């Protein structure tokens, strides 16, 4: 399976995957298709997908556990804020993540909040080759509300 590298680890080698991600072709930028049964799974897969675009997660050791919290007026804003927070940590602290745990999404007075623990380590140039240069996650065509029977399935366009 030559494209296995582009698949989420959950998706590898399985016939039917309840959740996962895969990069999608987009001429100017990069697309990340993400699917999951529940909202938390969706957000986790999106974060894993983005992390894989930044570098090979198999090379990331879990040396640090960082709590991350973001808010959004609606779910779309929450998702964009979540992914841009991961990009920000990569840029400002050089952090690369391999896993995201204890992800909780709650409704608040102002919309939604997300809390999670990100597991990873600061980039070590000798071990972590640079992947895509992602500037930001965009709102282009993003709709989370439209959940089908099998769950969520959406494509996030990343500005590169």
């Amino acid at each position, binding site marked *: 399976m030559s494209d296995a590298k*582009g698949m989420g680890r959950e998706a590898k080698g399985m*016939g*039917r*995957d*309840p959740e996962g991600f*895969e*990069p*999608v*072709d*987009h*001429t*100017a*930028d*990069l697309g990340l*298709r993400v*699917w999951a049964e529940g909202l938390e799974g969706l957000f986790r897969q999106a974060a894993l997908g983005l992390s894989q675009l*930044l570098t090979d997660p198999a090379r990331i050791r879990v040396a640090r556990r960082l709590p991350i919290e973001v808010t959004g*007026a609606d779910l*779309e*804003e929450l998702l*964009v*804020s979540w992914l*841009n927070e991961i990009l*920000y940590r*990569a*840029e*400002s*602290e*050089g952090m690369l993540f391999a896993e995201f745990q204890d992800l909780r999404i709650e409704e608040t007075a102002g919309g939604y909040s997300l809390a999670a623990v990100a597991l990873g380590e600061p*980039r070590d140039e000798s071990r972590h*080759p*640079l*992947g*895509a*240069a992602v*500037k*930001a996650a*965009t*709102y*282009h*065509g*993003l709709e989370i509300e439209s959940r089908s029977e*099998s769950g969520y*399935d*959406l*494509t996030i*366009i990343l*500005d*590169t």
Partner: protein
Amino acid sequence: MKDHGRGSDAKMMAKRTEKTSPRLRKIHSYLWEIERSGGMRVPGRIFISESMIDRVCSDGGLDQVVNVAHLPGIVGYSFAMPDIHWGYGFPIGGVAATDPAQGGVVSPGGVGYDINCGVRVATTHLERADVERKLEALVTSLFRHIPTGLGSSGAIRKVSSKELDRVMVIGARWAVEQGYGSKGDLAHTEEEGCLGGADPSAVGQRARSRGCEQLGTLGSGNHFVEIDVVEEIYHKEAAREFGLRPGQIALQIHTGSRGFGHQVCDDYLKVMARAVRKFNLQLPDRQLACAPVESAEGGAYLAAMACAANFAWANRQTIMALAERAMLECLGMTPRDLGLTLLYDVCHNIAKLEDHEVGREVRRLCVHRKGATRAYPPRGVKNPWRTGQPVLIPGDMGTESYICVGQEKSLRETWGSTCHGAGRMMSRKGAIRKARGRNIKQELRRLGITVRYEGRTTLAEEMPEAYKDVDEVVRTCHGAGISKMVARLKPVGVMKG
């Protein structure tokens, strides 16, 4: 759920094709129109040649031209330049002007994340033979002096938050005051390297911290520093005015406002999402989120965007000086022998308040250029050039760049705008697939181009075949009369972030 993925891709394609192929009506050989329909407030106008039509129609870019035509207060047409391709919100290559007096809006999506991404070209006294055998060393030296890549911080000392305020307000002049380049450079920079209306209090803390870290860094992706050779002159008079001659070595820099601009855009997209609800604006795509220019939200965005634009000009000014040091060190020359002189600096991701003729009156419009370049005619406002404002069209690795000149027609037809570059025609994934098993670096070397880059994926993604023919894009603008070709530059040494 094997076909889960396929399904979604297909759905997306369907979503695109359903709406699309908005019908194109030919105006002349280089101009096509999309008639008004649905919620479009104005028609769309696309500058392309007949041979580009299939490619443009198969991309989602035309849908986005239609979407932009929905913006409140849009005047004239929703334009696309020949380098149009599917972006997010606006198409890349999109130009739209809104009238603030008629409720016209400003949209961060019409500028993009990389606010004031732009290009500068500087000429030198050198000939090709002066650098030919030193290209490898020269590119290495550029890498040593100019920081790049993911999270790279500056070669220049980290600026304080207070100093950053000054960068935000005075732009390129800040860099000159620090000893990066000379005062004369400012006269050869769009807006003299400083956009008015900048207000640092409109910029958030996170943007500030990213700005302090990243001033004087190139970034990655399609950003580059290039050593070029002037290969051909098309317009002798303009070339003379611009100081260009065949065989001459030039320096080209393509970068923008880095994380500072990305953060300003991200922050204000949230502000705009609230404004869209507050002003009850109907938009076909959330990435077009906007607010009236004359609202608190619109004003704050323009003030913050100006800060990011000024940061970008300070950044390019600084990087040019770092590149000069790299060249001097490597070639063992004096600045006088090298003769590095800024030809011009243009931005291609910006929204600006400009005076334009609408019918018989002059109105102040908010002109969005998302992947488009200002192209003012000779002797106009803010333009002392006898032959017209220089327009810099960067190619991509292995493809040529062009220097063009603004024309009278651009003012009349496109709010004084023309194309900005080649534009992708292959997705990154597609490019990587095509590059598999090939040595792109060696292929480029055979073409006489020395390349250094960070990260293998980037090079494959950015291989020349992934881009539309810049030649055809520039010729279409030339044919349409919105800019004229002056010279073609060939890359010989490339530093790629």
